[in-house]
């Protein structure tokens, strides 16, 4: 029971209120975020500059837009089509928000090179939220049921929710903190909408 050991270390160090989660992650029947070492951890070294975080987030949002857009083209289900259109628009807005934040923080007007120049290791293609390649995701989603696709989207959005929560923790300027907070709240909202369509899909199947 590592968490109990950890809890007692913390209590011993004077932490006010410590709780250990019973059953650990296996008891958590909810959405979990997956860490992708090269896409996530590497960028989150303590030295990561806010401009780099913004650029990375922008690239991920851009990838997600492309993914949602092609889903609206290939799916037949009207309700899902509508949701993905909405999500796509929302991620577009996130891109604009991030673009403006970059401008404010760096004092520079972003050029078309903005996101790519900022990332130390060039991603291998269009990466979307969750660090997955758009091309891979699209290839995978061919012939899959709506339920499977929604499941993938749920894990992607969970990852981006997690990403913004972490960016909010890491970043020091208040303005950037505020922006990441808003973005994380919106990703949480995406999650809720995807979840509700997902559970509807489960109901009709049974």
């Amino acid at each position: 029971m590592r968490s109990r050991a950890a809890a007692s270390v913390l209590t011993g160090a004077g932490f006010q209120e410590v709780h250990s989660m019973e059953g650990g992650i296996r008891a958590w029947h909810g959405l979990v975020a997956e860490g992708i070492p090269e896409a996530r951890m590497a960028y989150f070294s303590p030295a990561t500059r806010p401009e780099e975080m913004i650029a990375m987030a922008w690239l991920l949002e851009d990838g997600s837009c492309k993914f949602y857009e092609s889903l609206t083209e290939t799916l037949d289900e009207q309700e899902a089509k509508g949701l993905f259109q909405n999500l796509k628009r929302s991620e577009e807005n996130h891109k604009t928000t991030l673009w403006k934040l970059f401008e404010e923080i760096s004092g520079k007007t972003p050029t078309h090179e903005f996101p790519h120049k900022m990332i130390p290791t060039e991603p291998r293609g269009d990466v979307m939220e969750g660090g997955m390649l758009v091309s891979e995701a699209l290839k995978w989603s061919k012939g899959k049921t709506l339920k499977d696709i929604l499941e993938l989207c749920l894990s992607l959005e969970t990852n981006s929710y997690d990403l913004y929560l972490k960016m909010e923790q890491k970043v020091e300027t208040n303005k950037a903190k505020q922006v990441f907070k808003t973005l994380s709240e919106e990703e949480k909202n995406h999650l809720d909408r995807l979840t509700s369509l997902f559970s509807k899909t489960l109901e009709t199947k049974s």
Partner: protein
Amino acid sequence: MSILDYFKPVSTWAAEKVREFLNEKTQEGYNLVDVRQPEEYEQGHLPGAQLIPVGELPNRLAELDPNKPTIVY
């Protein structure tokens, strides 16, 4: 840490209780710490959880605010 520390009563919360707590609070209101190994963390973790493997915890206490409620798993 002495061996006796293992026998100190530790508050445990069910996953459902943790979920309610996290839903009610904003992120500034708590510490959520994943004390497993990086490989496990990568396979899946609670959104927003901070990774501090249990073995590193004693040296990394400064990364957490002792005045906030802290949940570990």
